[in-house]
């Protein structure tokens, strides 16, 4: 049975500061449920990493829009802007997307609120991507592609030219005078 509440966000985002004091990035949120989701977007420090390496209080973090509606099957993006960033080191922040229930039910019920958080890591270089080593390149040179082939080709052209001229001698122009 399809669920009315299902939302997807980036799990981990690595942001490279590269010496800048201001950085902007977008986070996509998708409604995979059957009902529109009214989302509130906020920042928090959840989990050990964010608590151990919080974003400095001097940094200003803003999320736009802070409230949005995502319809089933659709994806929207929010823009996160960090300004006033100084210093180096690794800092972790959570961007929390909270879907509020649309309706309230009577008769001793608890309506459910679903929230999913992206874990954003700020560092100087950002994510270090490890590239797979390329396999060793084995070059293949056919015999006719080397300098020996060049000499053979030149000689063949010369011989052909001489044979052609021997069979078809050019007439000397007549002298006038």
């Amino acid at each position, binding site marked *: *049975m399809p*669920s*009315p*509440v*299902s*939302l*997807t*966000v*980036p*799990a*981990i985002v690595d942001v490279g500061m590269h010496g800048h004091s201001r950085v902007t990035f977008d986070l996509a949120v998708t409604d*995979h*449920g059957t009902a529109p989701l009214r989302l509130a977007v906020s920042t928090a420090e*959840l*989990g050990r990493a964010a608590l151990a390496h919080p974003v400095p209080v001097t940094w200003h973090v803003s999320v736009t829009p802070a409230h949005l509606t995502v319809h089933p099957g659709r994806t929207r993006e929010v823009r996160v802007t960090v300004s006033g960033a100084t210093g180096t080191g690794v800092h972790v922040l*959570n961007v*929390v997307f*909270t879907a509020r*229930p*649309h*309706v309230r*039910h*009577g*008769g*001793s*019920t*608890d*309506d*459910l*609120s*679903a*929230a*999913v*958080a*992206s*874990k954003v890591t700020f560092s100087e270089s950002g994510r270090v*991507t490890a*590239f*797979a080593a*390329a*396999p060793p*390149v*084995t*070059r*293949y*040179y*056919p015999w*006719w*592609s*080397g300098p020996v*082939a*060049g000499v053979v*080709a*030149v000689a*063949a*052209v*010369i011989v052909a*030219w*001489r044979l052609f001229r021997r069979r078809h001698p*050019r007439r000397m122009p007549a002298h006038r005078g």
Partner: protein
Amino acid sequence: MKRRWLPVAGALAAVITVAGAGAAQAANSPGSVTSSATVGSTITLTLSAASVNFGTVNAGDADDPGSALSATVTTNDGHGFILAASPADMTGNGPDVIPLTNMSVMTADYAPQTWPAESTGYQPVDAKTAGGTYNLFQSWQLSVPGATPADYYTGVISYLATAS
């Protein structure tokens, strides 16, 4: 006179040969390039229902079970995730409430979880250390204080999933 063209023809042939050899080498030698792609990590939280219904309960009841609820978490992040929950007081039309301390949740992996009074924060109710899709059954229970007036009581239980 005719010998004058021999060096020119020879040079031309050499140039054509070398150029052709280079082109053939580029087209036929089995080289390789490095391919790279970044697969972004995502996390999805799906709740099997929009609410947990405790039905008609009586004042003084202990551990009335709520309706079935599954929280399904899917992530391709290899470090896994934490699922946390945060209930709130259940309120009725009058001033009385059923405090959140009277609610508890039990999962397959965790012991029954309760929340301290006036709690506004999340507490972990489950966690996994690897990526995948996990269907996590949530068994909520409600104890009703003895002096609770008859009324409809409603509240909000918040679930949060985040990467470990």
